[in-house]
C-alpha cells in the first residue's frame, strides 16, 4: 500500500518535472545528459525540413519517423521542400519577425553554402551539440574528414553528419560503347557525339558540382580552392574553366541554350535517350534508378581518372527550433549504425554511411560487409580518389560568373 502510494507520488512528481521541463524554453537540452534529452523529447513533434524530391528518401525518412515514435515517443513530420535555400529564408523570416523560440523548423537537411550562410548569420542552435550525441562515437572522423569540415567550413558540432556523397557518372552500355575518363576527353567525346551531353543548370547543386569538378582538373594549382576566394584572383584561376566551357557548350544538348534543371531531370533525359551520360551525387544513384524502373538495367557507373568531388551531408537545428530535444534524438538515431546500415542498402536508398564500419557493433559490421551495393554501383575500392569540396565562396562566385556568361 505504502509502496503504491510512494510510486504514485513519484510518478506525479516526475510528471510535474516533465511538464516543467517542457515549459522551460530558456534552457536548451544538453546532449551530454542524454537521458534528460530523451525525457524532454518524449511527446515532442519534430518538423524536419528536408528536400522531398526523391520518393525513396521520403520513404526512408518516414521509416525513421516510425522508429523514433516507437522508441522515444517523438513524432516526426517531414516537411518536403524543393529547395533548402527556402528553409534558410524561412528561419531568417522568423528571426526578422522576432520569433526567437517556438520556430517552425526543428531540423534541416543541409550542407555547403546553406550551412555556411546559416552559421555566419547565427541562425543555428549555437551550442556544439552534434559531437556530443551518443552515436557520434561511431563516426569516421579520421577516414572521412568531411564529416567535420563541410565544404572546408568547420562544423563545430552545429550539424550532425548524415551521409556521404561522391560525384559518380553513369551511361547506358546498350547505347554507349566508350565513355570519357577526364574533362579533356569529355570535350572530345562531346564533339563526336553532339547533343548527347549536358549538366544540370547552375545554381543547381549538382550542376555547380560539375563546374567545380571541371575546375579541379583544369586549374593550375588546385590547393587555392581550399582557401577562401579573397586570397586568389578569381578571373585568372577560373579562366581555363570558362574557356573549356566555351568549347564544350556548342556540342552540348540543345547547344547549351537550355539545361536540365536538376539531376533527376538529367536522369530522365538519359532514360529517354536524349542524353548518353548522366551523373549524380550518390554512388548508388544508377542502381537505385534501375531498381525503380527509371533507368534500363544496362546502365553502369564510372568515375574520372583524377578523382571526383565528394562531400558529406548533414542535419542541423535552427536557433529557434521548437523541439530541440526531439530534433537531437532524431539526429542521433539517423547516425546510429542501424539507421546508417539501412540507408546504405541500395534497395532502400543506397546513401553511403558516415560511420567507421569497423567501429560499429559486430552485428551491423557483418551486415555492412555483406551489403549488396547493387548492379550498377562501383565497389568502394573502384570509386577512386575523392576530391575535397572547394571553400563555399568559390561556389558562390562560380555560380555568379556562370550565370552572367551562359545563364542570360
Amino acid at each position: 500500500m505504502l509502496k503504491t502510494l510512494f510510486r504514485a507520488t513519484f510518478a506525479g512528481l516526475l510528471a510535474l518535472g516533465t511538464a516543467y521541463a517542457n515549459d522551460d524554453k530558456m534552457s536548451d537540452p544538453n546532449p551530454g545528459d542524454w537521458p534528460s534529452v530523451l525525457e524532454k523529447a518524449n511527446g515532442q513533434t519534430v518538423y524536419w525540413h528536408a528536400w522531398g524530391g526523391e520518393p525513396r528518401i521520403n520513404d526512408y525518412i518516414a521509416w525513421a519517423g516510425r522508429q523514433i515514435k516507437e522508441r522515444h515517443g517523438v513524432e516526426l513530420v517531414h516537411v518536403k521542400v524543393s529547395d533548402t535555400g527556402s528553409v534558410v529564408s524561412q528561419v531568417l523570416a522568423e528571426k526578422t519577425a522576432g520569433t526567437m523560440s517556438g520556430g517552425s523548423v526543428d531540423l534541416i537537411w543541409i550542407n555547403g553554402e546553406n550551412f555556411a550562410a546559416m552559421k555566419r548569420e547565427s541562425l543555428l542552435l549555437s551550442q556544439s551539440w552534434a559531437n556530443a550525441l551518443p552515436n557520434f562515437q561511431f563516426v569516421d572522423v579520421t577516414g572521412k574528414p568531411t564529416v567535420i569540415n563541410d565544404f572546408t567550413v568547420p562544423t563545430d558540432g552545429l550539424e550532425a553528419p548524415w551521409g556521404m556523397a561522391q560525384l559518380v557518372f553513369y551511361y547506358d552500355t546498350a547505347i554507349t560503347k566508350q565513355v570519357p575518363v577526364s574533362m579533356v576527353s569529355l570535350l572530345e567525346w562531346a564533339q563526336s557525339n553532339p547533343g548527347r551531353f549536358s549538366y544540370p543548370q547552375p545554381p543547381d547543386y549538382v550542376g555547380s558540382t560539375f563546374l567545380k569538378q571541371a575546375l579541379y582538373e583544369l586549374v593550375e594549382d588546385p590547393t587555392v580552392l581550399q582557401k577562401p576566394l579573397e586570397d586568389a584572383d578569381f578571373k585568372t584561376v577560373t579562366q581555363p574553366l570558362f574557356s573549356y566551357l566555351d568549347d564544350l557548350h556548342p556540342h552540348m544538348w540543345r547547344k547549351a541554350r537550355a539545361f536540365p534543371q536538376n539531376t533527376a531531370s538529367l536522369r530522365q533525359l538519359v532514360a529517354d535517350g536524349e542524353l548518353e551520360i548522366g551523373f549524380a551525387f550518390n554512388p548508388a544513384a544508377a542502381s537505385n534508378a534501375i531498381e525503380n524502373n527509371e533507368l534500363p538495367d544496362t546502365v553502369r557507373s564510372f568515375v574520372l581518372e583524377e578523382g571526383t568531388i565528394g562531400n558529406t551531408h548533414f542535419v542541423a537545428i535552427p536557433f529557434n527550433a521548437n523541439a530541440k530535444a526531439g530534433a537531437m534524438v532524431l539526429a542521433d538515431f539517423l547516425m546510429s549504425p542501424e539507421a546508417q546500415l539501412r540507408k546504405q542498402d541500395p534497395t532502400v536508398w543506397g546513401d553511403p554511411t558516415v560511420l567507421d564500419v569497423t567501429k560499429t557493433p559486430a552485428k551491423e559490421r557483418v551486415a555492412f560487409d555483406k551489403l549488396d551495393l547493387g548492379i550498377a554501383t562501383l565497389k568502394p575500392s573502384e570509386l577512386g580518389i575523392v576530391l575535397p569540396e572547394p571553400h563555399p565562396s568559390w561556389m558562390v562566385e562560380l555560380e555568379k560568373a556562370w550565370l552572367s556568361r551562359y545563364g542570360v
Partner: protein
Amino acid sequence: MLKHIPALTLFILIGPVLAGLLGALLPAFGILPTLGGTEATVAYFAEVLTTPGVMRSSCISLLVGLLTTAISLSIVMTLIAGWQGTRFFKALQSLLSPLLSVPHAAAAFGLAFLIAPSGWLMRLFSPWATGLSRPPDWLIVNDPMALSMMAGLIAKEVPFLLLVALAALPQSDARQKANLASTLGYGPIAGFYKTTFPLVYRQIRLPVLAVLAYATSVVDVAIILGPTTPPPLSVRLLQWMNDPEITERFKASAGAQLQLCVTACALVVWLLSERVIRQFGFKSVVKGKRHFADETIRKTIALLAILSSAMVLAGIATLGIWSFAGFWRFPNALPNSFTLDIWARQGMGLETPMQNTLLIGITATLIAVTLTLACLEQEARSGKTATSRALLLLYVPLIVPQVSFLFGLEILALQLGGKAHITSVVLTHVIFVLPYAYLSLADPWRAWDKRYAAVAFGMGHGPNTVFWRVRVPMLLSAILTASAVGFAVSIGQYLATLLIGGGRFPTITTEAVALASGGDRRVIGVYALIQALLPFIGFGLALFVPAILYRNRRALKATA
C-alpha cells in the same frame, strides 16, 4: 450586421494585399532591422537592375503576358464570332469547360510530357513516321522564346475567357446583331467584331486584365515550360527569395517592385492598345467592308481551339500513362511494362496532403461563398448594386502579382500569429477564392427573377425567409458551381500555401511541385493527375447534387 459585410469583405481582400506590398516595399529600400538594414537606400534597386539578364527576363515576362492575352482573347472572340449558335460550338464548349478546372501546373506538366522531343507525340510517331530511334535534339520545352510557355498558358486561358465571354453574350443581344449584320451582307466574323465585340469586351475587360497580369507574373507554369537562360522575372524573383545568401532578400524585395512595374507596364500597354484598336474599329465600321469570305479564318480558329484543348487532354492522358509506367524506352509508344508500384508507394504519403487540401479548400470556399452571398444579399436588400469601382477592387488580388505581395505577407502572418497557422493559410486562400466565387455567382444571382421574392413578401414572409426558402434553393445550382470554382482555385494555389503555411501544410499542389524537383515522371504523373481530378469532383458534385435534390422540379433543372 449584414450591412457591414461588403466592407468587411473588401477588407479581407484588399487588406492583406496592401500589407503584403508594404512588407516587401520596406526591405526593397534596405529596411529590415534584423538583418542590419536600418538605413534607407536604393542600392538594391541598382543591384537588381544591373543583374545580368534582368532586362531580358523582364521583357520575356512582359511579352509573354501581352501575347498570351492577345492571342487567347482573339481565339475566343473569333470562335464566338464564327461559330456561335452552331452544334460544333456547343460541342466545343463542353470540351473546353472541364479544362477550366485543370490546375495550371497539371496542364503544364501534361503539355511538357506531350511535346518534348522525347515526349509522347514523338513516341507515337517514331520510328515509323519520323525514322528516329533516338529523340532529336530540338529545343521545344523551355525554349528561349517562351513559345511552349505561351502555348501552355493560352491552352488554359482560352477556356477561362470563353466562359466569361459566354456569360457576357446574353446582355449584348449577340444573336440579333449577328442576324442583322448578316442581312447587311457581313461575314459572321466581321459582323461580330463590328457589332457585338465592343459590347462584350466592355464586360469582360477586367477578367482580361486579370489574365494579362497573371501571365506576366506566373511562377509554376514558367518553371515547368518557360525558358531557363534566363527565366522570366517571376522565376528569378523566387530564386532570389530562396537564395541561401541572406542579403539576397533585399534584392528579392526590390525585384518584387520590378515585377510590379512590369505588370503595370503590361497593363498600360494593353490599355493604350485598346484606344488604338478603338480608332481602327471606328474606321473599319465606317468603311463598311463586308469580309464575307471568312471561311478559312473560321476553320483555322476552330482547329486552333480543338488543338489547344486536345493538347491539354492528351497531356493529362500522358500523365495517366506515366503514373502506371514501368521502364519506358524511347521510341516505344507505350511503357515496356505497367506497374501499380508508384500509386502503392505514393498512396501512404497522400493522406496528409489530401486532408490539408480538402480542409483548406473547403473552409476557404465556405468562407468565400458565405461572404459572397452576404454581399449579394445586402445588395439586393439595399437596392444598391456594386459600382464598377467596387468591382475593380474585387480584381485587385487577381491583378497584383502574387510573388510581389506574398513575401511581405509572410512576415506579416508571422508577426500576427507567432508561427504559421492553418488559419492564415485558409485566409490567404480566401483572398484568391473570393473574387472567383463572387464573379461566378453575381450574374445568376442578379438575373434571378425578383417577382418570386415579391410573391413571398406578399404572403407575409420576411427577407430572411425569402433568402433561405426561396432564393438559395432556386439558385442552389449556381451557388454550388461558384463553390466548385472556388475549390478549384484553392487547389491550384502554390505560392500562397507554401509561403504563408511555412511548408507545414503540404497540399497536393505543393507536394506535386516539390516532387517535380525530383523529376520522376511517374510520381509527377500521380500528383498532377490527382491535382487535375479533385476539381472535377467538385464540379461533378455541383452538377449532381441539384439534379438529385430537384429531380422532381423540372423548371429548376434549366438553371444549371
